[in-house]
């Protein structure tokens, strides 16, 4: 009701009674690009971050912290390879623990990029333009982090390639029935397409940077990376076609990757894993966490680099709505889990569900409900969606909540399954935490480098928005 009223009050541009509903109010609020920008100002502003701005002290400190954490990750990994995965708390029956939790979590985070880039591109959601580059980069880095965990968590990581179907003299193939093999395909395809899509989008901007930099070295590097882009009409024509095609290719991957990660669990007979609704549930969760992560990163970034004109409140508002929508799907998922556990009549399903809620790890379930269900409800309020601190806080909370969710699915389901004699609690070790925190360090290290070396916002796409917003004005 209030929403409708609010829509009405702001409805000044369109007096038609028939068009009165809220639809209009979505189109009109804060613009996707603050007015007053020209082609030149957009280019200057964004390329200056890379080309002319001094490396700020903040960047150095942030990078140093991230790099230190990344080194901790490397140290832990070296120790892991030397001694074996027993350094983690992983045990029997909890054969998968933090590494897989981290894997699923990072993969989820890596969802927003492609969704924003490809799906919203195909849907002509032009507000995506300011955030897609950044979101794609985030995707790549998150998928990189994610990809490390399944490798590291193997007992013998040095033979990881046995999971890939390559011709060999032994005539041995992977087991195509195993969802872990699907995972290999899904994640590697997703990573490949994401990197292509991201790089392709970068080419015109790389050419811009090549043209604008005064540093010979940068000219050479950017020039090589730009693949001789001259901006001719033929280039643009091919570019647009290829970009659309890639977008079309990437779109199903958004659904497939996390569906398959969901199937890793759904295929198992472990109570708490063995549910058909896992794949869509995982996808919704991934979008949820991906958008939350974009928000978590975008909010500080736009204020540090003064990008409020390009990443406007409209963007944040839209992302908050997506979070609210997917958060509600998550809530639906949690509720249906409870219901189906009861309705199935299966004692193991019932036990595992009750164990999640009331068991030794009950705190994580209630934490999850608070993080993923309760806090996003704030976004029903427009005022909250406009408040930067609230947006930032909730997005961080959602990220924590999604990590908890994966923890609940992976660890709590495993620690008490069919035979009570095998039940055992899981206790993470210092190395589990090091790898979790270290992977965050790795992620931020890459992100800091990206922000420093490449345009965080797509210059040429934003320039097209300048034209459109000018027209509107």
């Amino acid at each position, binding site marked *: 009701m209030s929403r409708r009223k609010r829509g009405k009050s702001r409805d000044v541009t369109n007096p038609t009674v028939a068009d009165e509903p809220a639809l209009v109010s979505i189109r009109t609020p804060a613009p996707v690009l603050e007015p007053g920008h020209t082609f030149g100002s957009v280019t200057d502003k964004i390329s200056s971050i890379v080309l002319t701005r001094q490396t700020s002290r903040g960047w150095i400190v942030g990078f140093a912290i991230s790099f230190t954490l990344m080194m901790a990750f490397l140290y832990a990994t070296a120790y892991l390879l030397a001694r074996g995965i027993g350094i983690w708390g992983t045990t029997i029956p909890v054969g998968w623990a933090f590494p897989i939790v981290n894997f699923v979590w990072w993969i989820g985070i890596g969802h927003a990029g492609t969704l924003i880039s490809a799906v919203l591109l195909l849907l002509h959601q032009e507000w995506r333009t300011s955030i897609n580059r950044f979101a794609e980069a985030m995707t790549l880095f998150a998928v990189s982090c994610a990809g490390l965990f399944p490798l590291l968590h193997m007992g*013998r990581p040095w033979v990881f390639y046995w999971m890939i179907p390559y011709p060999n003299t032994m005539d041995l193939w992977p087991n195509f*029935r195993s969802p872990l093999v699907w995972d290999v395909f899904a994640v590697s395809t997703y990573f490949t397409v994401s990197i292509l899509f991201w790089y392709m989008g970068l080419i015109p901007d790389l050419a811009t940077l090549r043209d604008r930099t005064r540093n010979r070295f940068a000219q050479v590097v950017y020039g090589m990376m730009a693949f001789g882009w001259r901006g001719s009409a033929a280039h643009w024509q091919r570019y647009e076609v290829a970009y659309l095609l890639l977008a079309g290719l990437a779109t199903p991957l958004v659904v497939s990757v996390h569906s398959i990660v969901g199937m890793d669990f759904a295929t198992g007979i472990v109570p708490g894993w063995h549910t058909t609704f896992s794949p869509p549930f995982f996808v919704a969760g991934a979008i949820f966490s991906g958008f939350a992560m974009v928000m978590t990163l975008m909010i500080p970034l736009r204020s540090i680099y003064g990008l409020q004109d390009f990443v406007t409140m409209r963007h944040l508002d839209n992302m908050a709505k997506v979070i609210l929508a997917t958060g509600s799907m998550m809530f639906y998922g949690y509720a249906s889990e409870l219901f189906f556990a009861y309705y199935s009549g299966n004692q193991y399903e019932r036990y595992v569900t009750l164990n999640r809620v009331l068991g030794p790890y009950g705190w994580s379930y209630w934490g999850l409900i608070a993080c993923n269900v309760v806090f996003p409800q704030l976004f029903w309020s427009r005022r909250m969606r406009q408040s930067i601190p609230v947006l930032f806080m909730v997005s961080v909370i959602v990220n924590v909540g999604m990590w908890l969710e994966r923890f609940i699915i992976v660890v709590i389901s495993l620690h008490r399954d*069919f035979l*009570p004699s095998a039940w055992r609690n899981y*206790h993470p070790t210092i190395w589990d935490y090091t790898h979790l925190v270290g992977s965050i360090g790795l992620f931020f290290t890459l992100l800091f480098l990206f922000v420093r070396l490449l345009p965080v916002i797509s210059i040429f796409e934003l320039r097209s928005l300048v034209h459109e917003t000018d027209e509107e004005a």
Partner: protein
Amino acid sequence: MTDFLNSTDRLDMPAGETVEVRPLDWEMLHRRLIDADDPPIWRSLEELSESPEFFDSLHREFPRQASEWTDPTSRRQFLKLMGASLGLAGLGISGCIRQPEEKIVPYVRQPEDMVPGKPKYYATCTTLGGFATGVLVESHLGRPTKIEGNPDHPASLGATDAFAQASILSLYDPDRSQTVMHSGRISTWGEFLTAMTAQMVDRRRENGSGLAILTETITSPTLANQLQSLRRDLAEAQWFQYEPISRDNVRAGARLAFGEDVTTVYNFEKADIILSLDAEFLVGMPGSLRYCRDFIDRRRVAETSASSAESANKMNRLYAVESMPGLTGAQADHRLPMRAGDVELFTRILAKELGAVPSSQALDLPSEVSRDWLDAVVDDLQTHATRSLVIAGEGQPAIVHALVHVMNRQLKNVGQTVEYLAPVEAEPVDQLQSLTTLVDQMRSGRVQTLIVLGGNPIYNTPGELKFAEAYEQVKFRVHLSHEFDETSFASDWHIPKAHELECWSDARAFDGTTTIQQPQIAPLYEGRSDHELLSVMAGHPEQLAYQTVQHYWKTRLGADDFERTWRKAVHDGIVAGTRSEPRSPEWKFADQTRPDVGTDSKSSSPLGITWEITFGPDPTIWDGRFANNGWLQELPKPITKLTWDNAALISPRTAHRLSINNHDVLEVERNGRSISVPAWIVPGQPDDSIAISFGYGRSRSGRIGTGAGVNAFALRAAESAWFESGVDVRQTGRKYPLSVTQNHHSMEGRDLVQVGTIAQFQQNPEFISHDRRHPEEQSTLYPKAATAENAWGMAIDQTACVGCNACVVACQAENNIPIVGKEQVRIGREMHWLRIDRYYRGGLESPDTCFQPVMCVHCENAPCELVCPVAATVHSHEGLNQMVYNRCVGTRYCSNNCPYKVRRFNFLDDTGEMGYDGDHAPTLSLMRNPDVTVRSRGVMEKCTYCIQRINTAKIEAQMQNRPVKDGEIVTACQQVCPARAITFGNLNDRRSDVAKVKTSPLNYSLLAELNALPRTTHLARIRNPHPMLAGPATNDTPSLEPFPPIDRVKFGAEETGRVSLQSNGHVEAPTRFGGSAGVSSSQIQNAIAHGNSDRLEGS
């Protein structure tokens, strides 16, 4: 390397001769060294000039020492050591001889029966507490690798216990003592001979006065003969005996009843009603393997539907009174937890009720016993006279044993279920008396020379006796032992003892049957046997144990045709006709009713509770002799599932009242001696009673045993009682992490272990729901595997399984399963392929204990196979779920997806990190079964149904162009099981044992509803309760969760149903339990109502 050479050189120094350094020789040596064409090898001039051994060694090279070459032993030794020195010079391994030297070189002409890769089996025996179990040792090219029971031996019948299984690891134990030690320094056998001979000269001069020998229980006829002849020779010499897990009470009970020593053996196959008074006859007792077989055979009545009706009458019934939860109580139809001190009173009452003892004295029943219980027992025993059996435990005082003898006579069981034989022990004495006398004599300085043959008295004698102090008084102390242990440390001389598998000897079984113990391998560490040491004392240092043993048997068996009888005895593992002759002892028992029974002095602890402490041998490391055996240390104790530690076992109610949690450290004090020991809550432990097992708290053992657990011997009183009243127990507020392999003890309302009574079975043999027995095969996406000639399958009879753990160790030995250490067990990474799950049914006070062995069940629709990304676990056409270690990349998905959680993962290279693998301890690689791969880090492993044995049999069959016969393949767990609970074979062969067993209506699939179609199925547990005494009504025990504080889930797990309702009513009545504590207030109130109110005060 020098020690090595020295030991050779010293080996056969003439007795009494000491090394003299003669200056003349020095010059001669120079001359020789200079003149020699081929200069001898030496290391440095300093050593040459200073070391007396060097002179000695040089002397040996001269022709005048030609004795070296005429004596076959020393020539052998010499060649061996020279060869070994050269061979091992670069390896830096000293003191390690890999295998019998004659096999280092390939055969020029191979013996006819010798096929490389094909093991050979030799009969011998292992002993525990002096009593033998006949075994067959599997030997691969001279390396013993596995021990099996000897089917012809009466104490084995083909089975062994966990100790015998693990003794193969003790043989190769890298921490075994490897050299002679003199006052803490490495020495040589030669030096010892010198010292010992000099000592014996002194003792001989005094006709043996001041010479004492301390042994453990001895049944070996040869050893006894040696000792006796030594005593004949030296009239004043003394022989003392002490075994920490002593049978003093048994012997004293027999003397009380008969005035003479007799050995009692039981015929369980004839017993319909058995009453155990704190007797653990299923494990540890001499003959327990045999008893277990006979006892279980009388319970295996409902296996096949055909014979059910008439066989049901024959099922025996066991009543067990227990002072600490044990295997016998777990198997009992009616178990009664009772404080050990009350058993005597109970026995007196029972004897009176049975009319065995005339007594007018009115005796009140102990508070634990209800009148109904007593009536039921008395009724059953009386109606089954001549077919009943009463048996008392070693921990109970002599009077109880005497009363038991009287009751058995009263019930006319003698000659039927009870048999008396001439004593099996060589010289039955009251060992505590013997030890006390020794300590007194040592203290008064009357013992100058003490030879300790085996045993570890400094550690395992009662703390109050202060053996160590007295030992100091002895001038010349020699200790022969496997380890350099506490006693070795306190001795002047320590001689490494040869393992049972390394030396000739003999030993007698529980019924006297004698086995010649033959060595399987030359002593790995220059160990000497008891016989050799005694020969030294007798003045024949050159006499080999082989000669001693053979010489003795020549006198026993007669010289005619000796060679043939001897070979047959050695080959068979039994000397024919050596069973002890039956005795019909006279009855001398007079009623010795003491008025003070049941009112023994009870002092109170500050909490107002009279604590009782009960001691017992440890179920896995016995009296500490197996402390350094990693397999046994890591073996979960049958009831508690503890590993690597002992604990103070207390009952849930006591724990609840005093707010004691698991892992809390308690201080237990008695007469100023105290120990701090972590608490462990065990349902079925009598209230206000603490049970502690011996064997832990070793201060000088190897890398495995040192420091594990708490030494309960320290607390033991000088009278060496097995239980005592009036100890103080205090909480220290500290915690000590214990490692258990099973944290959860309730079935959570799931019908995992199907239990029924024989009455139920007779009424409706099909009482297990059809779904469980024959799970409908649901359709799957994947095609069904084609059927092959063989379909391997297994059935495990839960009525028969007594939970003795022998199969767990057998599996470990057969399949090269590593140990992982206490810390890793604590976080759940134990590697046992076969585990025995233990669940409780019924109330917390005296629950019914069920054992469920679970190993890979080889599902036909195996969930693990589906999810392995690299197809490292695949199905064979014969139905095996195979694990390809080389292909495994270690994703652990298979383990997650395994509903039975039987897969084990090599998380770390644990044995390597513990320094307990072939790299760090070369002997351990000799122990491995060459037919089984040793798995590396990062690889999943699990039960294979002993595929190496399957393939051996298949190859054999193929060569003879015939199908594999039933019974030809015996898995390691099946082979060792004394109760024959495990059946294995070809399911496609309808006449195979396993196929027949699987037709039983008791056969069911664990977790059948998952459609995994396990090839291993379980047979329901059938019990035979007295109709007058209601069995436990519930199918489950409330979980003990409140005690480990981390687990707090509580909810009615049984709302989900899955109750099998059959025509005869509930098999598994649904349980609903709630509340926040494991012991509900109603249970405590019930307890009060049952008359335990005095115990409950002061909470």
